[in-house]
C-alpha cells in the first residue's frame, strides 16, 4: 500500500479512509459539516452515502480524502475484506452516551487489524461528547482504551461541530508523516502546485 503519486494533478496526495463502529454512533454525521438549519433531504438519508471526496490542506499539501461510510452494514456484520482494501486510515467510532458501543471498540479493533493493511492508521473517536447529561463513557476511559490499543484518540461532537474537522486533519497528518520518506508522497513535480499560494485556498469551504 502506498500513497498514489499525483504528478499532473491538482493535489499532492490521496488517502482512502474508513469509518467503522457500531450502528448509531454517528458515523455519517461526522461527515457532515454542521450548519444551522442544515438541509438534510430525506432522499439521501434513505439511499445512503457510499463515499465522499473531501479536500483538505495539511502541512502545505493539498490532500484528497476518500471517506467510506459503512452506513448500516455493520448491523449485519457484512463488512467485507474488500471494504478494507487499500485503506490508509480507519476511524473507529463509539458513542460516549452508549457504553455498549465502547465495549465493542476492542472487537472492532480486532476486526480492523485482521482485515486492513498492516500499516493502516487507526484513530479512536468518542462521538457525541456535547451530551454531558447522558454521558456513560468518560474521556479518561477513552484515553485509557486508546493507550491500550496504541492509537491516537479524540472526543468529538458532530452536533456542536467540536473536533469534527480535527479528526480528519489529525489522521491525514499522521498518514502524511508515515509516507514522507516514500517517493509516492513526494511533492508533485509538475502540474498545479497548490502549496505555492496560487488561489490561497486553505480549506474546502472558503
Amino acid at each position, binding site marked *: 500500500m502506498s500513497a498514489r503519486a499525483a504528478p499532473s494533478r491538482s493535489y499532492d496526495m490521496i488517502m482512502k479512509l474508513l469509518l467503522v463502529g457500531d450502528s448509531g454512533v454517528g458515523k455519517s454525521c461526522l461527515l457532515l*459539516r454542521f450548519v444551522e438549519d*442544515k438541509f438534510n*433531504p430525506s432522499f439521501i438519508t434513505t439511499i*445512503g452515502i457510499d*463515499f*465522499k*471526496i473531501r479536500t483538505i490542506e495539511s502541512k502545505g499539501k493539498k490532500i484528497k480524502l476518500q471517506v467510506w461510510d459503512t452506513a448500516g452494514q455493520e448491523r449485519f456484520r457484512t463488512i467485507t475484506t474488500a471494504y478494507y482494501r487499500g485503506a490508509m486510515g480507519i476511524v473507529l467510532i463509539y458513542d460516549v452516551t452508549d457504553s455498549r458501543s465502547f465495549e465493542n471498540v476492542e472487537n472492532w479493533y480486532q476486526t480492523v487489524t485482521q482485515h486492513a493493511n498492516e500499516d493502516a492508521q487507526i484513530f479512536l473517536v468518542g462521538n457525541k461528547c456535547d451530551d454531558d447529561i447522558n454521558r456513560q463513557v468518560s474521556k479518561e476511559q477513552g484515553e485509557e482504551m486508546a493507550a491500550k490499543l496504541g492509537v491516537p484518540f479524540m472526543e468529538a461532537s458532530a452536533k456542536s461541530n467540536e473536533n469534527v474537522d480535527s479528526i480528519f486533519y489529525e489522521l491525514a497528518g499522521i498518514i502524511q508523516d508515515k509516507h514522507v520518506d516514500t517517493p509516492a508522497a513526494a511533492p508533485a513535480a509538475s502540474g498545479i502546485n497548490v502549496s505555492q499560494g496560487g488561489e490561497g485556498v486553505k480549506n474546502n*469551504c472558503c
Partner: protein
Amino acid sequence: MTSHTYSNIDLAAVLSEKKPVLTRCSFQKCNARIIPVTETLQKNIVEIKEAPKMMSTATDANEVVKSSASFFQIGDVWDFDNIGVSRPTEEVAGKFSLEDSETFINIERVLVCSECDRGPIGFAGLSSTDLNDVKNLKYFLSCNSVLYQSS
C-alpha cells in the same frame, strides 16, 4: 467574488481569459467547493435528454423541480474537491447514450454536496461495456445545480 448561476456566466469567455472558475454548493451557508472548471471540463459538457431530475439553483433551494439537460462529464472522481456519492438506488435508474457513442450509461447513483448532503446535484453511472466496479463509475455534475465563482 460574486457567484453566478450557469445561465449568467459565459464559461468559455471567462476561461479564455485564464481566470480560474470554481463551482460551489449553492446552499449559502455551506458554499463548499465542488470542482474547479477547467477548459477540459468545460469542453466536456454534455446534453442529456430525459436526465434524472436535479436540484436547480434558480428555484427554491428545497425544491427539486427541474430536469436539467446540461452536465459536466467527469471520468475521475478525484477531480472533485468535495462530493458525496450515494449508494446505488432505483430512484434514478435509467439509461442514456452519449453523442457519438453506441454504449449506454446505466444511471445508478446520485451526487450530493459532501459537506451538507444537499442535492441531487448530479448522478453517476456505469457504461454498458464496463465491469460493475465502483472504480469505473462515470460522473455527471448538473451545470444548473451549482454556483460559479470567478475572481
